[in-house]
């Protein structure tokens, strides 16, 4: 029997070690007292203390949170509209183009998205005077354009696997399309909307390339700060930050998984 074949299981174990070893090392070294991370100098929470003194980093984190929240919300809105148009409407002019446009940002290298948006903003500034300076909103536009493709990828699948008879029944019983949307369709696909929003949030919160191109003076995001620090080598403070970050994300994911598993026992 193939199920008892050990080879895939061994590789699975090795693969999981490969995925988790670097993360465990970061957590381990974040409690290192020494200045240089590679040498163990005893247990200490010194780097956590220094991390909390680092107002520049926390300011960037706050900027990133605001950008991630705004762009994720925008991307979910636009992505849901696009998914509805693609799954619920009768064919319209330019539908094929629209369909491929919605997923194109997925395969576009980020560096090209960033560069092209910057060149657009520069040209627009010359032609119509907007945007007069790059910052919060230009970064939001960049992140929204990238992450709405991911939202479409998630929401569209959910909408096409959806039992349409429920919607048809409501329509037959005299409900207006808008009422069907708000009381039937959206509540049913809400897990997909939430998953899409969360993914868009993380994509934005994590992005360094598009932000670097579309940001201006005074709007530095968290990944840009981290990127500039680790470019020069290992920084114990970043180890401490990474540990906190990983712990937060793990808690959130575990919480979501627990809620999901409790709702629908397997």
């Amino acid at each position, binding site marked *: 029997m*193939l199920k008892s074949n050990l080879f895939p299981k061994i590789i699975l174990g090795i693969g999981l070690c490969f*995925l988790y070893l670097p993360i465990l090392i970061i957590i381990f070294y974040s409690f290192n007292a020494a200045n240089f991370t590679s040498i163990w100098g005893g247990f200490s929470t010194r780097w956590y203390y220094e991390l909390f003194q680092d107002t520049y980093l926390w300011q960037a984190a706050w900027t990133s949170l605001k950008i991630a929240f705004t762009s994720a919300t925008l991307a979910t809105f636009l992505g849901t509209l696009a998914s509805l148009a693609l799954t619920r409407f009768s064919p319209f002019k330019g539908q094929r183009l629209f369909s491929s446009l*919605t997923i194109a940002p997925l395969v576009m290298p980020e*560096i090209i998205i960033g560069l*092209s948006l910057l*060149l657009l903003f520069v040209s627009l500034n010359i032609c119509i005077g907007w945007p007069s300076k790059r910052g919060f909103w230009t970064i939001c536009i960049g992140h929204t354009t990238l992450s709405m493709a991911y939202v479409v990828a998630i929401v569209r699948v959910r909408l096409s696997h959806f039992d349409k008879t429920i919607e048809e029944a409501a329509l037959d019983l005299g409900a207006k399309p808008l009422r069907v949307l708000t009381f039937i369709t959206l509540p049913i696909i809400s897990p997909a909307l939430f998953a899409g929003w969360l993914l868009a949030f993380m994509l934005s919160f994590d992005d360094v390339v598009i932000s670097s191109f579309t940001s201006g003076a005074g709007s530095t995001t968290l990944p840009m700060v981290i990127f500039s620090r680790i470019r020069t080598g290992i920084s114990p403070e970043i180890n401490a930050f990474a540990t906190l970050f*990983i712990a937060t994300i793990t808690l959130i994911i575990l919480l979501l998984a627990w809620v999901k598993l409790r709702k629908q026992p397997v």
Partner: protein
Amino acid sequence: MTFIKKKLLSFFSPILSVRSWVIATPYVWLGLFFVVPFFVVLRVSLSEEVLGIPPYTDMFLWVDTYVAKIIFTFESYTYLIEDDLYLSSYLTSLKFALITTIVALLLGFPMAIGISNLNKKWQIIMLLLIMLPFWTSFLIRIYAWLNLLTPYGLINSFLIYIGVITEPLRLLFNNFSVTIGMVYCYLPFMILPIYVTLEKMDPSLQEAASDLGAKPFTVFKSIILPLSFPGLLTGSLLVFIPCVGEFVIPEILGGSDNILIGRLVWNEFFLNHSWPTAAALSIALLVILFIPIYGLQKLQKIFAERLES
């Protein structure tokens, strides 16, 4: 009067209907912030580099108030062809993307099989474990390897401790570290699509084959491999494409000689302030990316047809 009213209404009804707003809002957004920027890049790539803000020439030379000459030059593109650096960096990028895809395939395929062989509860736990690093920051995951691969990092210390080597190996800032970083970051993209196709597979096929006396390898070769082919293709594409244009991984884990195309675009733009060259590089990168995407789509189509017949 009613006729005019009707005409007006039928003209404005598309503008007033909810349907057209639902379509138009995302359409206009993508047009404005995805399609138009592409043409701006194309236009800048055809302009000449000058000192100034912005550092490229205007496409239109206004001869009169209403008459303009369109000026463009292929200088940036000839520049790309003449300098070996650019061609070799394209080849380097493709090489890294290909190696990463192969390594991710060799590691991810057995992992996906391993997951699909578990019971339902463990499958969910394993998928969560595979996805969890993906949700933590991309930058932090790359940074994690800095800690591991330094001359006095864990791997070198361990190898010296057990006596395999006496001098620390140079593991960082070379081909090895860039490949490891890429495989590490994109492995989940390989595992998930393969897992999805394996999950859809009828398990009785494998059982029937082994009941009839097929060895595990024969079952793998004649059932699992052909049936999971669509997943393998999707996974490979999801790993290959972002790797070609990757910037952050080679910048942090790569040495000065690992010049991938993403780094080159960044350097041309931010360090050399040569906007037309950066734009021309991007256009060339898109053309190069289009070939494997198109080829794999064709392959997928052929395969789907063969599977049906």
